[in-house]
């Protein structure tokens, strides 16, 4: 959610039950302003909170002018001092996929994972148990990256693509109408499109290239991995992800207010197909 409209967004996203305490909110308002100044971000998003056993991680992201460019991610333990996280790489994601369970809440914590590695020495094959240390920071980075790639949402029309390439915020976005807001196809993944090129030419002919340049949510597998509800008596659309429980996207139809926040344990719900 945009740091500019933090209070309103938190209020609208409060239907999921998890939010922020008043002192955290107040600290965020101040510290995100300073982060924007120091890092020269165009827009700062408060991404959410990952619950750990001993402490929580508060995550913020900074965007440049081009909304789809790689973002810088920062984390903080107390909403006041923010530290930059390294960008996620494939190896990180692969390495941390073996770590299960909750986050500890201590960034210097190291998970130990024993792997059986086969080493060849001459003709003999040794099997050694290698203990791999994985830092919690790495795990944090990869989890945030996975969540962004999988379930970050933006409504159709909020961004538009210029002919030169960069993607900008659409300042004349007035919000989805009520009928559009109830359809899953009006919401896009806020990431580089992956499935767009698989569309048939017939489908592509109906698309508006400046607005429909992202993947829509309706083709997500498994079907039904999004729960859409109207709250506050039809005045608010709330999308909750079932794949990463804790991600809430809200949008007030006919207004500009929209945003998403993740408050959860940082664990993927692998049982999703069985639970539906």
């Amino acid at each position, binding site marked *: 959610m945009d740091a500019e409209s933090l209070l309103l967004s938190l209020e609208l996203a409060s239907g999921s039950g998890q939010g922020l305490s008043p002192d955290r909110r107040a600290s965020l308002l101040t510290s995100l302003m300073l982060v924007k100044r120091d890092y020269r971000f165009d827009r700062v998003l408060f991404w959410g909170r990952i619950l750990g056993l001993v*402490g929580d991680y508060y995550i913020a992201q900074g965007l440049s002018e081009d909304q789809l460019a790689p973002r810088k991610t920062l984390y903080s333990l107390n909403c006041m001092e923010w530290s930059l996280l390294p960008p996620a790489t494939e190896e990180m994601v692969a390495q941390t996929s073996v770590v299960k369970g909750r986050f500890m809440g201590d960034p210097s914590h190291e998970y130990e994972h024993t792997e059986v590695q086969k080493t060849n020495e001459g003709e003999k094959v040794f099997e050694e148990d290698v203990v791999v240390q994985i830092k919690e920071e790495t795990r944090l980075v990869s989890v945030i990256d996975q969540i962004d790639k999988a379930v970050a949402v933006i409504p159709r029309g909020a961004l538009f693509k210029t002919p030169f390439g960069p993607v900008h915020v659409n300042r004349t976005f007035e919000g989805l109408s*009520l*009928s559009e807001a109830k359809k899953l196809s009006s919401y896009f993944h806020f990431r580089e499109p992956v499935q767009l090129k698989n569309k048939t030419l017939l489908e592509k002919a109906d698309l508006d290239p400046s607005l429909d340049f992202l993947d829509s949510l309706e083709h997500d597998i498994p079907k039904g991995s999004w729960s859409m509800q109207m709250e506050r008596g039809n005045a608010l659309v709330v999308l909750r992800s079932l794949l990463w429980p804790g991600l809430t996207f809200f949008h007030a139809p006919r207004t500009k207010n929209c945003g998403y926040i993740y408050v959860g344990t940082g664990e993927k719900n692998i049982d999703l197909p069985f639970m539906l």
Partner: protein
Amino acid sequence: MGDPPSDPDPPSGPPDSRRRSSQVSRRRRSRELQPTFSEEAEAEQIPLDAGILQRSQEYLGSQSNLQGWSPGAALTQQDNLMFQAEEAQLGGIEYPSLSMGLPIQPQPYLEEGGIQATRTASLMLQQLQQGQGNLFQQLESAYQGAGPDFPGLFSMYQGDDLQFGHDAPHGPYLRDDPALQVSLSELGFTPFTVEVPEPEPRELAVQNAKAYLLQTSVNCSLSLYEHLVNLLTKILNQRPEDPLSILESLNRTTQWEWFHPKLDTTRDDPEMQPTYEMADRQRALFVRSSGGEGEQEMEEEVADSPVPNVMESAFYFEQAGVGLGSDESFRIFLALKQLVEQQPIHTCRFWGKILGLRRSYLVAEVEFREGEEEAEEEEVEEPAEGGETPDSPGEEEGEEDEEKAVDVVPKPQWKPPPVIPKEESRSGANKYWYFVCNEPGGPWTRLPPVTPIQIVQARRIRKFFTGHLDAPVVSFPPFPGTEANYLRAQIARISAATQVSPLGFYQFGEEEGDEEEEGGAGRDSYEENPDFEGIPVLELVDSMANWVHHTQHILPQGRCTWVNPLQRTEEEEELGEEEEKAEGMEEVEQEVGPPLLTPLSEDAGSLRTSTWAGATSTARRTSTPRCRRPRSRSSPAARRSWR
């Protein structure tokens, strides 16, 4: 028009001017220039360059096409220049930006005008200030009337030109007009013979262009002309910053608005109907107290109302970062009040919210008043008894078939495991009754009491809630019941596992013979300790031993108090089957669970409970009173449930 637009160089006068002229006429229609010119313009007496004049001539030549002049305009030469420059300003978006900082009213347009244009503009504005304000009124009466009457030299020429243009095309001998020739020679250059556009073809061309713009599109009744008028009106009214960069969006918006006009106030917006209905229902929540119940209300407030103080709890939860938002909490409070009025309730508590796929559940935990509940229990039991009778005729038929068949089908020896009886209400897992509703303002539905088999099965499956109580729960192993039963089972499990309180807050009541009771039964009641003095926050955070469960643990059997399933009831003994009794007798161990008020440090699974360091800092800052909320942090009631 066939002319190439947007030539940024000022010298390419005629094509731009032609386009500009039509634009000017359009804009004149739609805007009103307020002459708020500064005094500084007066100070600038810039001599007219020949170049300027030449260009001016060209502009003037183009004015023959203008039809926006009404007679009686008293314009001097400078006025003309002003008019041209204004024209240049208005039409010249492609002009290079200015470096003169003249604070003249049409500022954004000035930036796009030529430098010379501004200089002339200053003169014109000066003129305007001197009382030639009727120009603008004339501007607005476009496409009307005969040509204007220019007293000035050029203007006179121009006026004649125009007049002639209107009435009769007498192009050539205008230049030979002796009066005009004198004026021209005074200025000292040979003007219009150099280049003078023919008035008639010019005018014709403009008319053609306008007709082209006015033609309506095939799909709709909107013409480009009208659309551009709307667009420019919108821009001029709203005056957005940097209109060029949002031009495309504005264009799209204007078009959209044309095709989606605002509905008449006499008609209802069909899309908003459900919203309005929901708002009406919620309004009923707020207006409940009206209707001559003032006195009764006062009495209720004096007495101990069973409605909980939701706002106070919400405040504490908010400090911990858990909550539904203050207005939602208030609505829940009103909904609970409504529930208390509808049902004979002794105590009531907001248990929490369970998120579902399509709708969510708000759960209230209530205790009925003594004796009130029995009437409702009977209704629940009747269908259960009705279900038992069909079984016995089935067994008899089976035996008959066996006798008839030649091959005796082996009788299945499997007997379903004995049904463990559910707990009595007000005890164990059925200690409280639960009501659910989907949204505050919606009707409250009572959940049926939970049976042990439901709890046992609920432990083995993981399913999402859809939000509809009668939805089937399709799972493996199959769940005996609908979503209402599954919901109730999950509520029972959550309550039993996660409700905690600080050590010492509750204590056991003094009863005789406590220790002599069977180990399995345990104590099942507690009362508030009046001498509780509170534990410092640090100690509460550091050690789990300072927190205790105050709800009974549910045994693997599915009940809180153990029942031996093999104890035959009287009915079953009458049916006989002593043989099977001997065969099926198994050693069933009594299941024992941790007794009430066990500290959390005894909990199995170290990761399930965690103290929250953040809460410590919060608690220190806000001096919370001694009574800490008896709620477990590992699963606040407002979190999604699938455990």
